[in-house]
């Protein structure tokens, strides 16, 4: 498996380069231009000048190459400088956003805390809710618990977050006044009170997202458990006198994990990708909001960089999922 992992990691390099090229071409091809947000009162000649200043006049391959160099060569140097106080990157041009004219990576770093707090937390919570629900629903198939679980999760999945989010705001912010409707990204947790405030402002977006994630994962968990509950080895485990808990949570669960691991691993990059709509509804302004504003503003370097980071995460987490398959099921061979 080591060779497999190494091979995959090596292979990831051309894959990622190719993905970045495809993303780049896609963005080039996509209609829209960074001047869309400039008011119509600004005359076209001026807009043309602005475009040129952004480097839009350069040929496509030059733009791509410039991005590659900036992303893979300059940005790591900046990171090193930041960590060790060196000055490798001095004077070199970083990946600059067209919209803010500032280094893209700085903004990304700025957005990480709230994304992780809200989206990350909701994902963890979603998984933590989903697994027990899925397992128990399968174990007691068609019991009241299963029926209610199914109902809630399907409704949770089919009702879009732009609706549930606003609903929660209307109930808890407008009518009850319990939680703020607008997330304060500058808030810093320093003491108990500020922690409570952080929790209060997190609770609604986290619940909305967690419900959505949990709905999806629990369905896969349930289906997969059902597939395995009737296998012969389960009978053997019972014959050993193992408690139902061990039988289900150890023997059946491990065998049922492959599809669930896939779903969970696929979801992790989306944590970093942010939950665009939920972030919008609650004004969390995380990475999702960053991406969507960048797309709306046709801020290509930003979109390109962000999507590429997601691509990186996707490749990594899919590799992790593959490695986990091998660990979960020893019969799966990779070489």
């Amino acid at each position, binding site marked *: 498996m080591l060779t497999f992992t190494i091979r995959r990691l090596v292979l990831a390099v051309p894959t990622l380069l190719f993905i970045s090229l495809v993303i780049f071409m896609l963005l080039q091809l996509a209609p829209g231009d960074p001047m869309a947000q400039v008011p119509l009162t600004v005359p076209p000649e001026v807009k043309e000048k602005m475009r040129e200043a952004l480097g839009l006049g350069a040929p496509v391959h030059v733009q791509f190459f410039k991005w590659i160099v900036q992303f893979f060569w300059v940005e790591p140097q900046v990171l090193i400088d930041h960590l060790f106080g060196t000055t490798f990157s001095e004077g070199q041009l970083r990946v600059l956003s067209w919209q803010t004219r500032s280094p893209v990576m700085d903004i990304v770093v700025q957005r990480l805390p709230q994304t992780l707090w809200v989206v990350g937390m909701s994902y963890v919570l979603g998984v933590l809710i989903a697994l027990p629900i899925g397992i128990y629903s399968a174990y007691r198939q068609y019991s009241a618990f299963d029926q209610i679980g199914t109902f809630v999760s399907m409704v949770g999945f089919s009702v879009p977050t732009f609706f549930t989010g606003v609903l929660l705001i209307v109930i808890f912010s407008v009518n009850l006044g319990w939680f703020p409707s607008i997330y304060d990204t500058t808030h810093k947790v320093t003491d108990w009170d500020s922690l409570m405030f952080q929790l209060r402002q997190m609770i609604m977006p986290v619940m909305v997202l967690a419900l959505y994630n949990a709905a999806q994962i629990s369905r896969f968990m349930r289906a997969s458990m059902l597939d395995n509950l009737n296998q012969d080895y389960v009978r053997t485990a019972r014959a050993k006198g193992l408690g139902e808990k061990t039988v289900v949570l150890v023997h059946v669960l491990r065998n049922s994990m492959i599809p669930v691991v896939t779903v969970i691993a696929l979801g992790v990059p989306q944590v970093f990708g942010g939950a665009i709509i939920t972030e919008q509804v609650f004004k969390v302004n995380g990475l999702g909001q960053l991406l969507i504003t960048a797309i709306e503003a046709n801020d290509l370097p930003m979109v390109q960089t962000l999507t590429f980071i*997601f691509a990186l995460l996707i490749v990594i987490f899919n590799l992790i999922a593959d490695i986990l398959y091998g660990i979960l099921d020893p019969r799966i061979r990779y070489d």
Partner: protein
Amino acid sequence: MTELINQPVPSAPPRSQWRDIWDQFKTHRGALIGGIVFVVIVLAVFIGPWLWPYDPTFIDIRSRNQNPSWAHPLGTDQLGRDMLARMMAGGQTSVSVGITAMLLALFLGSLIGVLAGYFKRLDNMLMRTTDLFLALPLLPLLLVMVLLFREPLNAAFGPETGIFILIVTAIGITSWMPTARIVRGDVLALKEREFVLAARSIGTTNFRMITRHVLPNVMSPIMVSATLGIANAIITESALSFLGLGFPPDFPTWGRLLFDAVDYMQQYPERVLWPGLAISLTVLSVNYLGDGLRDALDPRIRGR
């Protein structure tokens, strides 16, 4: 003595497999209710408009924002359009888009997942393609698709069918990846089971191996993907329309009705209720249908 040994075991006439499945399906209460609800929804949205006098796009400005009444059982919207008519018209689009896009995504996902899991040679290439698709930003991709294909499709199929094809394809090709990965994972494990080896020893071709041995055994994650896929497609469609990438603006869909109504949630809560309910009901009914079907297809559960 000979008679004793050689006498046939008392036997009943063989039954057909489809009969079995149907029998099992029938006894599954959830599936049955789900099926009925689904059929009712489909009938309501496709037959309903023939029976209902109002046109979904007809504006009667004098009767705007009405609460439910006999004339307008679901009320009217901010332009005085009849909500029932709009719900039915919206349902046609949402249900057809939901189901077709889901089927397309499911087909692509299962195909790619099975191929990747089954053929080691293809695995790397297909899974890297999946990574690529997962990584592509949805919005620009859709914009490009609309840019490239809207005109030709409009020319070939007319504006409505053209945009339908475009939307279904757009949703389909941007949502098959999770299914593919899940199916592949399962196939990887399944491939090492002994009955696959046994099937190979009797000369089963790869194609048949996949259709007879592999696919039926990965049915349950596919079923789950299917139910989740419908909900996903219906909601994605509304997002597309909202971004101006979907159907013309006067073309109601459930997702869009819901989206438009969210602003009016406090004044006219029923307006969010109808489309929300319709989407949830559809998804729930499909889910129960899928559950029932899965149980019916699983011989270990059947007969219990």
